[in-house]
């Protein structure tokens, strides 16, 4: 379930939160919404602390390829889930999108690793009922545009 299927699912979730049209600044907000939804649902299974640990690991794994992610500090007192990234000035929006997708995909993938595909995909489906998750548990190979 780790990439590319998780990547596809995360891309779908991000696109779903983003809507049909988007601006550069909307990307982080959409990722933040997706993160909160995942947190609310997955924390029921793995606890809030458990979800934070998964998210931190996902950021750590994605950051070498997307250095701007290093600024993400995870949940903060003001209710943020992802936190604010380092400056994204001058970074191509598609790179920002890919980086944020990698964090969400990593979080989902780590959840699959620890608690299994069935529970994780069920949680994803509860959040986004239209997410392209097939009955076999694999996300369909298509993206939300």
């Amino acid at each position, binding site marked *: 379930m780790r990439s590319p299927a998780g990547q596809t699912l995360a891309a779908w979730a991000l696109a779903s939160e983003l809507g049909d049209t988007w601006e550069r600044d909307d990307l982080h907000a959409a990722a933040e919404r997706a993160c909160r939804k995942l947190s609310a649902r997955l924390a*029921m*299974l*793995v*606890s*809030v*602390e*458990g979800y934070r*640990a*998964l998210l931190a690991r996902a950021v750590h794994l994605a950051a070498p390829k997307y250095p701007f992610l290093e600024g993400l500090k995870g949940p903060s007192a003001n209710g943020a889930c992802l936190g604010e990234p380092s400056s994204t000035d001058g970074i191509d929006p598609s790179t920002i999108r890919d980086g944020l997708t990698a964090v969400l995909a990593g979080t989902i993938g780590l959840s699959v690793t*620890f*608690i*299994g595909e*069935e*529970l994780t995909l*069920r*949680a994803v489906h*509860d959040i986004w009922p239209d997410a392209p998750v097939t009955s076999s548990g694999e996300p369909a190979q298509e993206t939300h545009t």
Partner: protein
Amino acid sequence: MTGETGRKRVPITLLRSEVPGLDEVLGGGVPEYTFTLIAGTPGTGKTTLAQQIMFSMATPDRPALHFTVLGEPPIKMLRYQQQFTFFDPDKVGSSVRYVHLGELALEGDLGKVLDAMIREVEATNPAIVVVDSFRTVIRSASATGGGSMDVQAFLQRLALHLTARQATTFLVGEYAESDLEDNPVFTVADGVLWLYQSVERNSVVRKLHVVKMRGQAPLPGFHTLRITDAGLQIFPRILKRPAIEAPRPAERLSTGVVEIDDMLGGGIPAWDSILVAGPSGSGKSTLGSQFIMTGAELGQAGVIAVFEERPDEYVSRSARLGSGLGAMVDKDLLEVLYLRPLDLSVDEALLEIQAAVARRKAGRLLIDSLSGFELALAPTFREDFRESLYRMVGALTGGGVTVFMTTETTMSFTDLNLSSNLISFLTDDIIIQRYVEIEGELRKVMGVVKMRGSNHSRLLREYQVTKGGLVVGEPLTDYTGLITGVAQRRVDARSNQGADRRPDGHG
């Protein structure tokens, strides 16, 4: 329910845990609305038992609420528990809900922990509540003074709230036996299930003891348990005797060897237990196989429990005996059980044997051999072997099964050691086999030394183990000293050489 005094008693509903063997040990199930502590040292299976009970009992109408506190984080618990077949992902989130109270517990304020629990219970209205690990809540609170509430008050209120909310509660905690003294948890709890694990040499043995269960009459003693991918299975120490309505029949069962039947006074009395004791190679297994096959020829199913070799080897070795055991297996008239060696408990073996007997509706059972059985046991169970065997034989013969057992004797030529482990007292009938030296030749003799409640031959007869089974010759009446292993022909028999006819016809 109305008692003898005419009082109406409060009915106590027993919830089936569906953990194999547990309900039987508890006296029928878990009493509803009780507060039960599952205690033991690490690695004994406490969390698995609690989860197994929870998944079994939880339904959408009667959901379960699982509080994880300190100890195993939920992410790891979910990871490992879903390896068990009882874990049903479909129930997670609907019938089974997990709530983590680790952060609150770390603060050490029992008042806050209690408030959070009550809030969740009121929101979920669970029928089952599990708190894992309860010990860590108390330990954390003790380290900080308990905050707004002391341990005793916390326990009293928790028990009261959960019972009043009609929840059946299981507290999971790591406790040592020394914790039993002056610990309010054990006083407040309605039930205490204690899990033990002992390691001896290369074997690990787990046991369950119901220390208390209010309103119930649990089975006393320590019950072996095994953890498999299906979860825990408990092996109750006391076997239930199947209800037999028919009286014990007067029938005698043939061993398959006419001469041995004659020695036994007409065969083995039905529902008896018989022990055939002899040294290695004396034909004990062959006779046992003949006993089972004779039953099969009459349409009577049998079970063979083997310990020293695998069933396929055992069956193929019997091919030389008439139609062989393989044909019986093919006709569903025989089940050959191979019981896991070296870490077996007697109770586990007994249940497997009893289950096989019930499956096949078997009237004949061969245990080949008691020596192998004892060796297959984990060392800790060997001390209880005789007592356990006594229970097993009683349960099986009481259930209408004729039990044929073999045991290997250690023999010297001047001593007859009937049974190295003093098991002869528990059987109804005993046949001994032994080697004797007759005129410089090593030969085999057998005799019946005990038959409870019936007459039998007192003659020793020579026999041979042939491809077709045991062939028994005439009584060796011309010799003395057979029991010593070195026979001497009687002086008055020397003139009658023809009387010494060997079972194969050679003389």
